[in-house]
Protein backbone atom coordinates (compact mmCIF):
# COMPACT_ATOMS: atom_id res chain seq x y z
CA UNK A 1 0.00 0.00 0.00
CA UNK A 2 1.61 3.22 -1.08
CA UNK A 3 -1.02 5.46 0.48
CA UNK A 4 0.06 8.24 2.82
CA UNK A 5 -2.10 8.17 5.90
CA UNK A 6 -2.52 11.50 7.65
CA UNK A 7 -5.04 11.48 10.44
CA UNK A 8 -3.99 15.00 11.48
CA UNK A 9 -5.82 16.27 8.40
CA UNK A 10 -9.04 16.64 10.39
CA UNK A 11 -7.59 19.51 12.39
CA UNK A 12 -6.28 21.44 9.40
CA UNK A 13 -8.30 24.33 8.09
CA UNK A 14 -10.46 23.47 5.10
CA UNK A 15 -10.47 25.67 1.95
CA UNK A 16 -13.41 27.69 3.31
CA UNK A 17 -10.82 29.32 5.57
CA UNK A 18 -12.96 29.22 8.71
CA UNK A 19 -13.67 25.63 9.68
CA UNK A 20 -11.36 22.67 10.15
CA UNK A 21 -12.13 19.57 8.09
CA UNK A 22 -13.61 17.93 11.20
CA UNK A 23 -15.97 20.89 11.65
CA UNK A 24 -17.11 20.70 8.03
CA UNK A 25 -17.98 17.02 8.56
CA UNK A 26 -19.96 17.87 11.69
CA UNK A 27 -21.78 20.65 9.81
CA UNK A 28 -22.64 18.03 7.20
CA UNK A 29 -23.94 15.73 9.94
CA UNK A 30 -26.23 18.58 11.02
CA UNK A 31 -27.65 18.91 7.50
CA UNK A 32 -28.08 15.13 7.27
CA UNK A 33 -30.05 15.03 10.52
CA UNK A 34 -32.08 18.14 9.68
CA UNK A 35 -33.02 16.74 6.27
CA UNK A 36 -33.87 13.31 7.63
CA UNK A 37 -35.96 14.67 10.54
CA UNK A 38 -37.92 17.14 8.41
CA UNK A 39 -38.52 14.48 5.74
CA UNK A 40 -39.59 12.04 8.46
CA UNK A 41 -42.27 14.46 9.74
CA UNK A 42 -43.59 14.76 6.18
CA UNK A 43 -43.41 10.98 5.68
CA UNK A 44 -45.27 10.22 8.92
CA UNK A 45 -48.05 12.70 8.10
CA UNK A 46 -48.65 11.63 4.51
CA UNK A 47 -47.83 7.99 5.21
CA UNK A 48 -50.48 7.84 7.94
CA UNK A 49 -53.09 9.56 5.76
CA UNK A 50 -52.45 7.25 2.81
CA UNK A 51 -52.16 4.16 5.00
CA UNK A 52 -55.54 4.98 6.58
CA UNK A 53 -57.03 5.71 3.14
CA UNK A 54 -56.08 2.21 1.99
CA UNK A 55 -58.03 0.60 4.85
CA UNK A 56 -61.23 2.66 4.51
CA UNK A 57 -64.28 0.97 2.97
CA UNK A 58 -64.39 3.56 0.12
CA UNK A 59 -63.01 1.93 -3.05
CA UNK A 60 -61.91 5.22 -4.67
CA UNK A 61 -59.93 6.22 -1.56
CA UNK A 62 -58.31 2.79 -1.33
CA UNK A 63 -57.42 2.89 -5.03
CA UNK A 64 -55.94 6.38 -4.68
CA UNK A 65 -53.84 5.13 -1.77
CA UNK A 66 -52.63 2.17 -3.76
CA UNK A 67 -51.71 4.33 -6.75
CA UNK A 68 -49.84 6.74 -4.45
CA UNK A 69 -47.78 3.93 -2.95
CA UNK A 70 -46.98 2.36 -6.34
CA UNK A 71 -46.01 5.72 -7.82
CA UNK A 72 -43.50 6.64 -5.11
CA UNK A 73 -42.16 3.10 -4.66
CA UNK A 74 -41.40 2.28 -8.29
CA UNK A 75 -39.31 5.31 -9.24
CA UNK A 76 -35.73 5.47 -7.90
CA UNK A 77 -35.21 8.13 -5.21
CA UNK A 78 -32.51 9.79 -7.31
CA UNK A 79 -34.92 10.24 -10.24
CA UNK A 80 -37.56 11.61 -7.86
CA UNK A 81 -35.03 14.15 -6.52
CA UNK A 82 -34.33 15.28 -10.10
CA UNK A 83 -38.04 15.56 -10.84
CA UNK A 84 -38.63 17.81 -7.82
CA UNK A 85 -35.46 19.84 -8.36
CA UNK A 86 -35.12 20.23 -12.14
CA UNK A 87 -38.53 19.42 -13.60
CA UNK A 88 -41.08 20.89 -11.15
CA UNK A 89 -39.92 24.55 -11.47
CA UNK A 90 -40.12 24.25 -15.27
CA UNK A 91 -43.68 22.91 -15.47
CA UNK A 92 -45.11 25.36 -12.92
CA UNK A 93 -46.22 28.88 -14.01
CA UNK A 94 -43.11 30.96 -14.76
CA UNK A 95 -43.21 33.27 -11.71
CA UNK A 96 -43.74 30.36 -9.29
CA UNK A 97 -40.93 28.40 -10.95
CA UNK A 98 -38.53 31.35 -10.75
CA UNK A 99 -39.41 31.88 -7.09
CA UNK A 100 -38.67 28.19 -6.41
CA UNK A 101 -35.33 28.35 -8.21
CA UNK A 102 -34.20 31.45 -6.32
CA UNK A 103 -35.20 30.13 -2.92
CA UNK A 104 -32.23 30.14 -0.51
CA UNK A 105 -31.33 26.54 0.48
CA UNK A 106 -33.50 25.29 -2.39
CA UNK A 107 -31.67 21.96 -2.41
CA UNK A 108 -32.51 21.45 1.28
CA UNK A 109 -36.24 22.03 0.79
CA UNK A 110 -36.26 19.89 -2.35
CA UNK A 111 -34.44 17.07 -0.58
CA UNK A 112 -36.92 17.21 2.31
CA UNK A 113 -39.93 17.08 -0.01
CA UNK A 114 -38.50 14.34 -2.25
CA UNK A 115 -37.27 12.18 0.61
CA UNK A 116 -40.47 12.83 2.57
CA UNK A 117 -42.80 11.65 -0.19
CA UNK A 118 -40.53 8.72 -1.07
CA UNK A 119 -40.48 7.55 2.56
CA UNK A 120 -44.21 8.25 3.02
CA UNK A 121 -45.08 5.43 0.59
CA UNK A 122 -43.13 3.00 2.77
CA UNK A 123 -44.65 4.38 5.97
CA UNK A 124 -48.11 4.05 4.39
CA UNK A 125 -47.52 0.33 3.82
CA UNK A 126 -46.49 -0.12 7.46
CA UNK A 127 -49.47 1.88 8.79
CA UNK A 128 -51.82 -0.17 6.61
CA UNK A 129 -50.27 -3.42 7.82
CA UNK A 130 -50.57 -2.22 11.43
CA UNK A 131 -54.27 -1.34 11.06
CA UNK A 132 -55.02 -4.63 9.25
CA UNK A 133 -53.27 -6.58 12.03
CA UNK A 134 -55.90 -5.37 14.53
CA UNK A 135 -58.94 -7.50 15.20
CA UNK A 136 -61.97 -6.41 13.14
CA UNK A 137 -63.94 -6.19 16.37
CA UNK A 138 -61.93 -3.15 17.48
CA UNK A 139 -63.44 -0.87 14.85
CA UNK A 140 -66.86 -2.48 15.17
CA UNK A 141 -66.82 -1.87 18.91
CA UNK A 142 -65.72 1.74 18.38
CA UNK A 143 -68.54 2.36 15.91
CA UNK A 144 -71.04 0.58 18.16
CA UNK A 145 -70.06 2.92 20.98
CA UNK A 146 -71.12 5.82 18.78
CA UNK A 147 -67.74 7.04 17.58
CA UNK A 148 -67.70 8.38 14.03
CA UNK A 149 -65.38 6.70 11.54
CA UNK A 150 -62.63 9.38 11.83
CA UNK A 151 -62.91 9.11 15.62
CA UNK A 152 -62.56 5.33 15.47
CA UNK A 153 -59.28 5.74 13.59
CA UNK A 154 -58.03 8.58 15.79
CA UNK A 155 -58.85 7.11 19.22
CA UNK A 156 -58.91 3.34 18.68
CA UNK A 157 -57.16 2.02 15.58
CA UNK A 158 -54.20 4.36 15.05
CA UNK A 159 -52.94 4.45 18.67
CA UNK A 160 -52.79 0.63 18.61
CA UNK A 161 -51.38 0.43 15.07
CA UNK A 162 -48.50 2.83 15.82
CA UNK A 163 -47.46 0.82 18.87
CA UNK A 164 -47.45 -2.38 16.83
CA UNK A 165 -45.48 -1.03 13.86
CA UNK A 166 -42.87 0.83 15.90
CA UNK A 167 -40.02 -1.65 15.12
CA UNK A 168 -40.43 -1.50 11.30
CA UNK A 169 -40.89 2.28 11.55
CA UNK A 170 -37.51 2.44 13.30
CA UNK A 171 -35.80 0.80 10.35
CA UNK A 172 -37.69 3.08 7.94
CA UNK A 173 -36.35 6.07 9.89
CA UNK A 174 -32.82 4.67 9.65
CA UNK A 175 -33.36 4.27 5.90
CA UNK A 176 -34.54 7.86 5.77
CA UNK A 177 -31.27 9.05 7.37
CA UNK A 178 -29.19 6.96 4.96
CA UNK A 179 -31.24 7.99 1.92
CA UNK A 180 -30.67 11.68 2.70
CA UNK A 181 -27.19 11.12 1.21
CA UNK A 182 -28.80 10.93 -2.25
CA UNK A 183 -29.46 14.68 -1.90
CA UNK A 184 -25.77 15.36 -2.61
CA UNK A 185 -26.69 14.99 -6.29
CA UNK A 186 -28.78 18.18 -6.10
CA UNK A 187 -26.08 20.03 -4.19
CA UNK A 188 -27.07 19.57 -0.55
CA UNK A 189 -23.86 19.65 1.52
CA UNK A 190 -24.78 16.81 3.87
CA UNK A 191 -22.37 14.35 5.47
CA UNK A 192 -21.47 12.23 2.41
CA UNK A 193 -21.06 15.36 0.26
CA UNK A 194 -18.73 16.91 2.90
CA UNK A 195 -16.65 13.73 3.00
CA UNK A 196 -16.47 13.81 -0.81
CA UNK A 197 -15.47 17.50 -0.76
CA UNK A 198 -12.82 16.82 1.87
CA UNK A 199 -11.43 14.01 -0.30
CA UNK A 200 -11.29 16.30 -3.33
CA UNK A 201 -9.60 19.16 -1.46
CA UNK A 202 -7.15 17.25 0.72
CA UNK A 203 -6.62 14.02 -1.29
CA UNK A 204 -6.97 12.11 1.99
CA UNK A 205 -9.57 9.72 0.56
CA UNK A 206 -9.72 7.04 3.20
CA UNK A 207 -9.56 9.34 6.24
CA UNK A 208 -12.52 11.33 4.93
CA UNK A 209 -14.68 8.29 4.15
CA UNK A 210 -13.69 6.51 7.39
CA UNK A 211 -14.83 9.52 9.40
CA UNK A 212 -18.16 9.68 7.54
CA UNK A 213 -18.66 5.93 8.01
CA UNK A 214 -18.00 6.20 11.75
CA UNK A 215 -20.44 9.09 12.07
CA UNK A 216 -23.17 7.16 10.23
CA UNK A 217 -22.58 4.11 12.46
CA UNK A 218 -22.79 6.28 15.61
CA UNK A 219 -26.07 7.83 14.41
CA UNK A 220 -27.38 4.33 13.63
CA UNK A 221 -26.50 2.95 17.06
CA UNK A 222 -27.92 6.01 18.84
CA UNK A 223 -31.22 5.81 16.96
CA UNK A 224 -31.46 2.04 17.42
CA UNK A 225 -30.94 2.28 21.19
CA UNK A 226 -33.23 5.28 21.56
CA UNK A 227 -35.99 3.57 19.63
CA UNK A 228 -35.51 0.31 21.53
CA UNK A 229 -36.19 2.24 24.73
CA UNK A 230 -39.34 3.77 23.23
CA UNK A 231 -40.38 0.36 21.85
CA UNK A 232 -40.14 -1.20 25.31
CA UNK A 233 -42.15 1.67 26.74
CA UNK A 234 -44.83 1.49 24.04
CA UNK A 235 -45.09 -2.29 23.65
CA UNK A 236 -48.68 -3.52 23.86
CA UNK A 237 -48.91 -5.80 26.93
CA UNK A 238 -49.81 -9.37 26.09
CA UNK A 239 -49.32 -8.89 22.33
CA UNK A 240 -45.61 -9.34 21.70
CA UNK A 241 -43.97 -12.71 21.83
CA UNK A 242 -46.53 -15.45 22.15
CA UNK A 243 -49.88 -15.04 20.41
CA UNK A 244 -52.78 -14.25 22.76
CA UNK A 245 -54.22 -17.34 24.45
CA UNK A 246 -57.22 -18.84 22.70
CA UNK A 247 -60.37 -18.90 24.80
CA UNK A 248 -61.70 -22.41 25.34
CA UNK A 249 -64.96 -23.60 26.77
Amino acid sequence: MNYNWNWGIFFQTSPDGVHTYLETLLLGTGWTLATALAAWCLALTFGSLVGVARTTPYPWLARFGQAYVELFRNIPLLVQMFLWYFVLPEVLPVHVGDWLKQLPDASFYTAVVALGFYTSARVAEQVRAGILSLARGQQMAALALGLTQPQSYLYVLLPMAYRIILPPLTSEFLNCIKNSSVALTIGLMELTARARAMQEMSFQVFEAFTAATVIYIVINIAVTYGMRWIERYAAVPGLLGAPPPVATH
Partner: protein
Amino acid sequence: MFSNFDFDVIIRSLPYLFYDGMTFTLTLTALATIGGIIFGTLLALMRLSGLAPLSLPAAGYVNLMRSVPLVLMIFWFYFLVPFIGQWITGASRPIQVGAFMSSLVTFTLFEAAYFSEIMRAGIQSVARGQVGAAQALGMTYVQTMSYIVLPQAFRNMMPVLLTQTIILFQDTSLVYVLSITDFLGAASKIAQRDGRLVEMYLFAAVVYFIISFAASLLVRRLQSRIAIIR
Protein backbone atom coordinates in the same frame (compact mmCIF):
# COMPACT_ATOMS: atom_id res chain seq x y z
CA MET B 1 -47.52 22.20 -19.85
CA PHE B 2 -46.87 20.08 -22.92
CA SER B 3 -46.90 23.07 -25.29
CA ASN B 4 -43.13 23.08 -25.77
CA PHE B 5 -42.56 19.48 -24.76
CA ASP B 6 -40.06 18.03 -27.23
CA PHE B 7 -40.95 14.39 -27.85
CA ASP B 8 -38.45 14.34 -30.68
CA VAL B 9 -35.43 14.57 -28.37
CA ILE B 10 -36.59 11.38 -26.65
CA ILE B 11 -37.05 9.52 -29.94
CA ARG B 12 -33.69 10.72 -31.28
CA SER B 13 -31.86 9.52 -28.17
CA LEU B 14 -33.65 6.18 -27.78
CA PRO B 15 -30.76 4.10 -29.20
CA TYR B 16 -28.26 5.80 -26.89
CA LEU B 17 -30.56 5.55 -23.86
CA PHE B 18 -31.33 1.88 -24.27
CA TYR B 19 -28.33 0.45 -26.11
CA ASP B 20 -25.68 2.22 -24.02
CA GLY B 21 -27.56 3.10 -20.86
CA MET B 22 -30.11 0.40 -20.16
CA THR B 23 -27.67 -2.37 -21.15
CA PHE B 24 -25.30 -1.17 -18.46
CA THR B 25 -28.10 -0.90 -15.89
CA LEU B 26 -29.52 -4.37 -16.61
CA THR B 27 -26.11 -6.09 -16.81
CA LEU B 28 -25.07 -4.52 -13.52
CA THR B 29 -28.39 -5.52 -11.92
CA ALA B 30 -28.16 -9.12 -13.12
CA LEU B 31 -24.50 -9.72 -12.22
CA ALA B 32 -24.76 -7.94 -8.85
CA THR B 33 -27.88 -9.98 -8.00
CA ILE B 34 -26.14 -13.29 -8.78
CA GLY B 35 -22.95 -12.29 -6.96
CA GLY B 36 -24.92 -10.78 -4.07
CA ILE B 37 -27.05 -13.90 -3.58
CA ILE B 38 -24.01 -16.22 -3.65
CA PHE B 39 -21.98 -14.10 -1.24
CA GLY B 40 -25.07 -13.33 0.85
CA THR B 41 -25.90 -17.03 1.21
CA LEU B 42 -22.33 -17.71 2.37
CA LEU B 43 -22.65 -14.87 4.90
CA ALA B 44 -25.95 -16.29 6.14
CA LEU B 45 -24.44 -19.78 6.52
CA MET B 46 -21.49 -18.26 8.42
CA ARG B 47 -23.86 -16.37 10.70
CA LEU B 48 -25.96 -19.44 11.45
CA SER B 49 -22.95 -21.76 11.85
CA GLY B 50 -22.84 -21.30 15.62
CA LEU B 51 -19.06 -20.88 15.44
CA ALA B 52 -18.02 -17.48 16.82
CA PRO B 53 -14.98 -17.01 14.49
CA LEU B 54 -17.37 -17.36 11.53
CA SER B 55 -20.57 -15.79 12.82
CA LEU B 56 -19.07 -12.65 14.41
CA PRO B 57 -17.24 -11.37 11.29
CA ALA B 58 -20.32 -12.11 9.17
CA ALA B 59 -22.61 -10.27 11.59
CA GLY B 60 -20.18 -7.35 11.77
CA TYR B 61 -19.96 -7.13 7.99
CA VAL B 62 -23.73 -7.21 7.51
CA ASN B 63 -24.36 -4.62 10.21
CA LEU B 64 -21.63 -2.34 8.85
CA MET B 65 -23.01 -2.45 5.31
CA ARG B 66 -26.55 -1.91 6.54
CA SER B 67 -25.74 1.18 8.58
CA VAL B 68 -23.94 3.10 5.82
CA PRO B 69 -25.61 4.79 2.83
CA LEU B 70 -25.07 3.20 -0.58
CA VAL B 71 -23.77 6.49 -2.01
CA LEU B 72 -20.95 6.55 0.55
CA MET B 73 -20.13 2.90 -0.24
CA ILE B 74 -19.98 3.70 -3.97
CA PHE B 75 -17.37 6.37 -3.23
CA TRP B 76 -15.50 4.04 -0.83
CA PHE B 77 -15.15 1.24 -3.35
CA TYR B 78 -14.39 3.57 -6.23
CA PHE B 79 -11.18 4.52 -4.43
CA LEU B 80 -10.62 1.24 -2.60
CA VAL B 81 -10.96 -1.28 -5.46
CA PRO B 82 -7.70 -0.19 -7.20
CA PHE B 83 -5.83 -0.78 -3.92
CA ILE B 84 -7.53 -4.16 -3.39
CA GLY B 85 -6.56 -5.12 -6.97
CA GLN B 86 -2.97 -4.11 -6.24
CA TRP B 87 -2.99 -6.18 -3.05
CA ILE B 88 -4.39 -9.27 -4.80
CA THR B 89 -2.15 -9.18 -7.85
CA GLY B 90 0.91 -7.91 -6.02
CA ALA B 91 1.39 -5.08 -8.52
CA SER B 92 3.61 -2.15 -7.63
CA ARG B 93 0.92 0.53 -8.02
CA PRO B 94 -2.88 0.67 -7.62
CA ILE B 95 -4.60 -1.06 -10.54
CA GLN B 96 -6.90 1.05 -12.70
CA VAL B 97 -10.24 -0.74 -12.91
CA GLY B 98 -13.03 0.45 -15.11
CA ALA B 99 -16.21 2.11 -13.89
CA PHE B 100 -18.15 -1.08 -14.55
CA MET B 101 -15.85 -3.33 -12.47
CA SER B 102 -15.84 -0.82 -9.64
CA SER B 103 -19.62 -0.53 -9.50
CA LEU B 104 -20.07 -4.30 -9.89
CA VAL B 105 -17.84 -4.93 -6.87
CA THR B 106 -19.67 -2.23 -4.90
CA PHE B 107 -23.16 -3.51 -5.59
CA THR B 108 -22.23 -7.17 -5.09
CA LEU B 109 -20.63 -6.51 -1.71
CA PHE B 110 -23.27 -4.01 -0.59
CA GLU B 111 -26.35 -5.96 -1.62
CA ALA B 112 -24.84 -9.20 -0.26
CA ALA B 113 -25.57 -7.83 3.22
CA TYR B 114 -29.27 -7.42 2.37
CA PHE B 115 -29.48 -10.76 0.53
CA SER B 116 -27.79 -12.40 3.52
CA GLU B 117 -30.56 -11.18 5.86
CA ILE B 118 -33.17 -12.59 3.47
CA MET B 119 -31.38 -15.93 3.18
CA ARG B 120 -30.94 -16.09 6.95
CA ALA B 121 -34.69 -15.75 7.37
CA GLY B 122 -35.18 -18.33 4.59
CA ILE B 123 -32.89 -20.88 6.22
CA GLN B 124 -34.57 -20.31 9.56
CA SER B 125 -37.97 -20.89 7.93
CA VAL B 126 -37.04 -24.51 7.18
CA ALA B 127 -38.42 -26.88 9.81
CA ARG B 128 -35.82 -28.16 12.28
CA GLY B 129 -36.91 -31.74 11.69
CA GLN B 130 -35.63 -31.52 8.10
CA VAL B 131 -32.05 -31.06 9.29
CA GLY B 132 -32.49 -33.82 11.84
CA ALA B 133 -33.86 -36.19 9.19
CA ALA B 134 -30.98 -35.37 6.81
CA GLN B 135 -28.43 -36.06 9.52
CA ALA B 136 -30.20 -39.29 10.46
CA LEU B 137 -29.82 -40.35 6.82
CA GLY B 138 -26.07 -39.85 7.17
CA MET B 139 -25.77 -36.65 5.16
CA THR B 140 -22.80 -34.37 5.79
CA TYR B 141 -23.23 -30.65 6.55
CA VAL B 142 -22.55 -29.71 2.92
CA GLN B 143 -25.04 -32.31 1.65
CA THR B 144 -27.70 -31.25 4.16
CA MET B 145 -27.36 -27.63 3.13
CA SER B 146 -27.15 -28.10 -0.63
CA TYR B 147 -29.80 -30.82 -1.04
CA ILE B 148 -32.25 -30.17 1.80
CA VAL B 149 -32.10 -26.75 3.43
CA LEU B 150 -30.99 -24.27 0.75
CA PRO B 151 -33.40 -25.42 -2.00
CA GLN B 152 -36.33 -24.94 0.38
CA ALA B 153 -34.93 -21.66 1.70
CA PHE B 154 -34.61 -20.32 -1.87
CA ARG B 155 -38.12 -21.39 -2.71
CA ASN B 156 -39.59 -19.81 0.42
CA MET B 157 -37.69 -16.57 -0.11
CA MET B 158 -37.97 -16.31 -3.92
CA PRO B 159 -40.52 -13.44 -3.85
CA VAL B 160 -38.46 -11.49 -1.31
CA LEU B 161 -35.24 -12.10 -3.27
CA LEU B 162 -36.90 -10.83 -6.45
CA THR B 163 -38.31 -7.79 -4.65
CA GLN B 164 -34.81 -7.02 -3.41
CA THR B 165 -33.62 -7.35 -7.03
CA ILE B 166 -36.15 -4.67 -8.05
CA ILE B 167 -34.76 -2.43 -5.30
CA LEU B 168 -31.25 -3.21 -6.59
CA PHE B 169 -32.37 -2.26 -10.10
CA GLN B 170 -33.55 1.12 -8.80
CA ASP B 171 -30.41 1.53 -6.68
CA THR B 172 -28.12 1.14 -9.70
CA SER B 173 -29.25 4.63 -10.74
CA LEU B 174 -26.93 5.89 -7.97
CA VAL B 175 -23.85 5.14 -10.11
CA TYR B 176 -24.78 8.58 -11.47
CA VAL B 177 -22.49 9.99 -8.75
CA LEU B 178 -19.50 8.48 -10.60
CA SER B 179 -20.67 10.00 -13.92
CA ILE B 180 -21.22 6.53 -15.36
CA THR B 181 -23.46 6.13 -18.42
CA ASP B 182 -26.16 3.93 -16.97
CA PHE B 183 -29.77 4.55 -18.05
CA LEU B 184 -30.18 7.63 -15.85
CA GLY B 185 -26.63 8.77 -16.66
CA ALA B 186 -27.40 8.60 -20.39
CA ALA B 187 -30.68 10.49 -19.91
CA SER B 188 -28.89 13.09 -17.81
CA LYS B 189 -26.13 13.60 -20.40
CA ILE B 190 -28.66 14.19 -23.19
CA ALA B 191 -30.70 16.41 -20.88
CA GLN B 192 -27.72 18.66 -20.20
CA ARG B 193 -26.38 18.63 -23.77
CA ASP B 194 -29.73 19.60 -25.33
CA GLY B 195 -31.12 21.57 -22.41
CA ARG B 196 -34.12 19.21 -22.25
CA LEU B 197 -34.20 18.38 -18.53
CA VAL B 198 -38.00 18.13 -18.31
CA GLU B 199 -38.38 15.66 -21.17
CA MET B 200 -35.45 13.40 -20.31
CA TYR B 201 -36.04 13.14 -16.56
CA LEU B 202 -39.78 12.56 -17.00
CA PHE B 203 -39.05 9.89 -19.60
CA ALA B 204 -36.49 8.23 -17.30
CA ALA B 205 -39.03 8.23 -14.46
CA VAL B 206 -41.68 6.65 -16.69
CA VAL B 207 -39.30 3.92 -17.88
CA TYR B 208 -38.13 3.11 -14.34
CA PHE B 209 -41.75 3.05 -13.18
CA ILE B 210 -42.94 0.74 -15.94
CA ILE B 211 -40.11 -1.76 -15.44
CA SER B 212 -40.31 -1.79 -11.63
CA PHE B 213 -44.11 -1.90 -11.56
CA ALA B 214 -44.34 -4.69 -14.14
CA ALA B 215 -41.66 -6.66 -12.31
CA SER B 216 -43.47 -6.26 -8.97
CA LEU B 217 -46.72 -7.48 -10.54
CA LEU B 218 -44.87 -10.54 -11.88
CA VAL B 219 -43.41 -11.18 -8.43
CA ARG B 220 -46.90 -11.04 -6.93
CA ARG B 221 -48.17 -13.59 -9.48
CA LEU B 222 -45.18 -15.82 -8.91
CA GLN B 223 -45.75 -15.59 -5.18
CA SER B 224 -49.28 -16.99 -5.43
CA ARG B 225 -48.11 -19.64 -7.87
CA ILE B 226 -45.14 -21.11 -6.04
CA ALA B 227 -46.60 -20.88 -2.57
CA ILE B 228 -46.29 -24.27 -0.92
CA ILE B 229 -49.70 -25.43 0.26
CA ARG B 230 -49.23 -26.66 3.79
